[in-house]
């Protein structure tokens, strides 16, 4: 089973639900709307052909500038028999942070979802015990969101410009490398 076969199999089982697919560094990555994410993963796990029996990882990502797609939840699945990995992504808007839970399919998802809730405030519907796991229970914000800076707000030497962001987006990686060589 290679990435192409896998993509075809998913497409024929769930026609038209894929938002986007790509293969960064050879790992098939598929975007799926959150309403479909649980049926798709359940099919991927129970189906004999795909047989993704192992949940490697689950985590959140915050993209504050992507309106209505501010939060990504990223799932890494692994078929250990055929050694195929798959990355699934689903997006949630900051106005509706409900995402269905994966706990009923993989027990491993329990703490991973608690961690994602703790860091980003994603509300995993149907989770048996969705409470904070690493931070204090009485914490009143979600610290991994981008609006909470690492440093003191008053510092002016640590803003995004000094981390290579903002101002020169059109300069590509190759440009930078060429520039570095020229210098």
């Amino acid at each position, binding site marked *: 089973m290679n990435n192409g076969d896998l993509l075809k199999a998913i497409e024929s089982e769930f026609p038209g639900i894929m938002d986007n697919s790509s293969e960064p560094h050879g790992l098939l990555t598929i975007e799926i709307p959150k309403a479909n994410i649980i049926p798709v993963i359940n099919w991927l796990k129970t189906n004999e052909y795909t047989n993704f029996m192992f949940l490697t990882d689950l985590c959140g990502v915050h993209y504050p500038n992507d309106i209505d797609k501010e939060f990504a939840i990223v799932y890494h699945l692994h078929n*250990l028999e055929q050694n195929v990995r798959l990355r699934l992504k689903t997006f949630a808007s900051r106005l509706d942070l409900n995402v269905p839970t994966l706990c009923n399919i993989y027990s491993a998802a329990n703490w991973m979802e608690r961690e994602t809730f703790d860091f980003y405030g994603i509300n995993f519907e149907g989770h048996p015990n969705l409470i904070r796991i690493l931070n204090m229970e009485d914490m009143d914000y979600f*610290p991994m969101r981008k609006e909470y800076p690492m440093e003191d707000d008053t510092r002016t030497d640590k803003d995004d410009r000094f981390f*290579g962001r903002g101002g020169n987006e059109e300069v590509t990686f190759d440009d930078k490398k060429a520039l*570095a060589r020229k210098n």
Partner: protein
Amino acid sequence: MNNIPQNYKSDSMDGELTTLNLGPTHPATHGIFQNVLTMDGERIQSANQTIGYIHRAFEKIAERRPYNQITPLTDRLNYCSSPINNLGWDMTVEKLIGIEVPKRVDYMRVIIMELARISDHLVCNSVIGVDTGALTGFTYIFQERERIYDLFEQVCGARLTTNIGRIGGFERDFNEEFYQKINLFLKEFPKRLLDFENLLCRNRIFMDRVIGVGPISGERALNYGFTGPNLRAAGVDYDVRVLNPYSSYQDFDFCVPVGKSGDTFDRFNVRQEEIHQSLSIIRQALDKMPAGNYHADVPEYYLPAKKDVYRSMEALIYHFKIVMGEMAIPKGEVYFSVEGGNGELGYYLISDGGRTPYRLHFRRPSFIYYQAYPEMIKGSLLSDAILTMSSMNVIAGELDA
């Protein structure tokens, strides 16, 4: 539910349940985390876990650190085998940037990572001995662990939180003293290890204490996301080094030991055999060590030698840029995993082309498999629960992110 013995009856006289706090700072938990146990006499009815007492927010900090400054953060995940974390991170960044390292670097990394694995397994197994009441093996084995730390000291100057290796290779080559020490270690250590095994492996008291304690089936273990020795003890032969070889592991000949029942005895034996396999890998790597440089030729990412910085304009510029974190990093998204002391240690890195990761997520094996602990100890005795925990090798640092 097959963890509950057949003859399980209520242990308490009056049917009253007791609540017992195991931790957060109990010597038998080997780290700061808490279990609130509901006890029926001496049997555990349920356990409620709390972790996060040493939350250090590495993933948040990593979003404001240039790539080379993240290596010291990874030290503190599984601090029993820091070099594996360090080198795993370096390889992740190399995968993102597309750096090819010389074969020699691969072999050097294999040697360091296998040494780290040995020290990790030594701690775990000797502590299992301590928790059954056998302190002697522990006192012997810790002297051997010190010798592994002496080896790390030769390569990076540090012993526990090593910050070993750099993006693109190593900071320095293995020196003469390192080779002397590792050859002596390879000569003397197997005998000590055998002494340790003879003390425990077929010891009636030890076997009675660990066989059938804290078992988990292969199917449950997979469902819970177990990896590493704990998964292999349950009979599933998943090893990242074999399935997705990195750092030239495909060049070496070694076995993946598996257990059968997934209990404490199997976990102990799998780790013990893995130490033998690691020793064999180190021997092979030393024998076949290729000639070449100890780092890749990537001046944009790898610090120039200090003497060049003082003399050459180019070296000075690169030095300044790397120290100030001005490395050119491509946009991209990469998942890379290595076989850590406890299983699949994964790095999920999203780069937006900035000098720091946009998002970095660590897949910490301990964090994922420790959630199975209540299921594994349900219905067992308190003293068995302690053994189950130490044989799972739950490292407090690796529960955090």
